């Protein structure tokens, strides 16, 4: 064990930092990324202090918080979904596409299927989950059977999914009453998710999101299935050695992952937009944001709630500065990248313990 001493300050290597240290490190990462983005903003001629004040002042109002909560819902569901995949060792970068497919499934039930009206909403939720799960199942079957790298295939499938959505809203599903806009017709009110009055918060989905984070926590801490998924995540060799069904455990993980992400898509079309629109307006990068969410929560499902809140706050901030400073939409990616990078740097710091007199971190 390496020990370095400077003025009574001891730095030594350790295996795994404790919970307080981990939380402290995440907070440090977020602060670092604020600083780093500020520098980039300043270089490109935008006053970072003005931008940040604007974000904080506008966010912490009643309408700002309502908007944050609305955005928190899809991010939470996607984050929990991705945690399941990541824990099973699957790099699911395809949440964006799985979310869109969920939205397509819900739209199909909402507008084009003849069902008994009270069943329409539950069916839309179910079919959305099935669509998202099926979309997630394709790359995992390719991985298990044909050894196709899932990072590339899930990513490629995001582009395919957005092509499908655009095809539908510009083509066969284009609304008759939409004046040439690439939208479907408005959904009948039987598939609307109930909102908290005066906001766009579709609360049933929010409750389900919180519930799912607890369920996934239980899955991995209390059940054999969760344990097997984690073990299979270590690789095929280990799974075979222990006699665990590698392929089936990975597929189950990906179905849960895609299903939760698909549900986020249903929430967006049945709760927020109430119609299907072109791909980039249905999901403004929720699927990619959720990768940060999963990493920020340290792959702990319970950590996904505060992480999703932070990311929803950042997305709301993005909208605020996009409107006030005329910045392009994609600019917020800088911040997303910074957060991930500083988390990686800070994690490396976490491999060391710092002692100073009685104080240890």
């Amino acid at each position, binding site marked *: 064990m390496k020990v370095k001493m400077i003025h009574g300050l001891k730095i030594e290597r350790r295996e795994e930092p404790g919970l307080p240290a981990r939380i402290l490190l995440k907070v440090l990462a977020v602060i670092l990324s604020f600083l780093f983005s500020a520098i980039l903003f300043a270089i490109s001629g935008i006053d970072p202090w003005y931008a940040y004040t604007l974000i904080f002042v506008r966010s912490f109002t009643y309408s700002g918080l309502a908007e944050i909560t609305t955005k928190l819902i899809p991010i939470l569901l996607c984050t929990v979904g991705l945690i399941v995949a990541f824990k099973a060792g699957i790099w699911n970068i395809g949440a964006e596409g799985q979310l869109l497919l969920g939205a397509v499934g819900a739209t199909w039930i909402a507008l084009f299927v003849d069902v008994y009206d009270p069943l329409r909403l539950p069916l839309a939720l179910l079919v959305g989950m099935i669509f998202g799960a099926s979309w997630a199942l394709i790359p995992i079957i390719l991985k298990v059977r044909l*050894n196709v790298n899932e990072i*590339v295939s899930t990513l490629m499938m995001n582009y395919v999914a957005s*092509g499908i959505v655009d095809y539908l809203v510009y083509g066969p599903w284009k609304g008759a009453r939409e004046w040439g806009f690439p939208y479907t017709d408005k959904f009948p009110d039987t598939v609307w998710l109930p909102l908290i009055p005066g906001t766009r918060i579709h609360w049933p989905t929010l409750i389900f999101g919180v519930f799912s984070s607890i369920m996934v926590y239980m899955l991995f801490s209390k059940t054999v299935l969760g344990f097997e998924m984690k073990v299979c995540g270590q690789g095929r060799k280990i799974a075979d050695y222990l006699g665990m069904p590698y392929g089936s455990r990975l597929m189950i993980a990906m179905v849960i992952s895609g299903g939760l992400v698909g549900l986020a898509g249903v929430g967006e079309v049945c709760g927020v937009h109430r119609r299907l629109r072109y791909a980039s307006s249905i999901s403004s990068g929720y699927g990619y944001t959720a990768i940060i969410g999963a990493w920020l929560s340290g792959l702990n499902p319970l950590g996904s709630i505060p992480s999703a809140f932070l990311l929803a706050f950042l997305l709301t901030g993005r909208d605020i500065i996009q409107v006030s400073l005329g910045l392009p939409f994609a600019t917020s990616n800088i911040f997303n990248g910074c957060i991930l990078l500083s988390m*990686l740097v800070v994690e490396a710091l976490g491999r060391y313990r710092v002692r100073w007199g009685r104080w240890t971190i």
Partner: protein
Amino acid sequence: MDYITEFIAMMISASTAILLAALGEIYAERSGVLNLGVEGMMAVGATIAFYATLSTGNIIIGLLSASISGMLLSLIHGFISITIRSNQVISGLALSMMGLGISSLIGRNLIGTPLRNSLGIIEVALLSDIPVIGAFFRQNALTFFSYILTAILWYILFKTKIGIAIRMVGDNPKSADSLGINVYTVRYRCTLLGGALAGLAGAYLSVAYTPTWIEGMTAGQGWIALALTVFSAWNPLYALIGSYLFGGIRILQFRLQPLGLSPPLLSTLPYLFTIISLALLNIEKIRWRIGAPQHLGKPYHREEA
């Protein structure tokens, strides 16, 4: 120019960007560093090249600054994956996100600005008149450069000591280290080469292929380049051939449009083709690829390895 020759010429010019990016990524991955930041480095390269060429009027400066910007970004990835040994997948994804963000921040005032001087088509006398093959000799300077570069990089990787060192570092860093090869230096150099070529690939898009800048102009080509790296079995020569397949699909997409097929659906073709081609490679009967570098994506640490 007949139809086939014209199609091939277009196919080649549509594939140069992914070829350049894949060549760089082959070197990075051969040394054991998986860099998923190609898309981001390309986006920044495209923007910087356009900006620099526009403001200096000199394309060479544009291309050079794009390469340098790609190298700077890959240096971040190198630091995280080689020096502090953190997660390479996440670091690469972060780099892609950051690159896309930076490019739209810098480029926000460039939209719609035409570029007065872009890389023009060079026709090699006599050779360019040969039917079909002539298509290879009727390209811009950067595409000619990509042919030469492929040959050089292939030669270095398989026929020189440097190449052996690179492959050894990616396959078995511990023995490479025991033979006195500096694992960290080799990995840093390969990662930086990958960054430089990804930046150049982006520059190709904005100053040669379509001399304009639009937001998100890389449109997933960086990811396709990553798929091409796998497809080529980490061999520069196969990457050249593979890139033409991918380029051909891109052109096919535009050629099929007049047939009344929906443009959004056609736009999914390159991505579908990428997935299908990776799957086909692994079907038992036509398995011809060699395995990935053994230590791809795994950090090296003397104390632990």
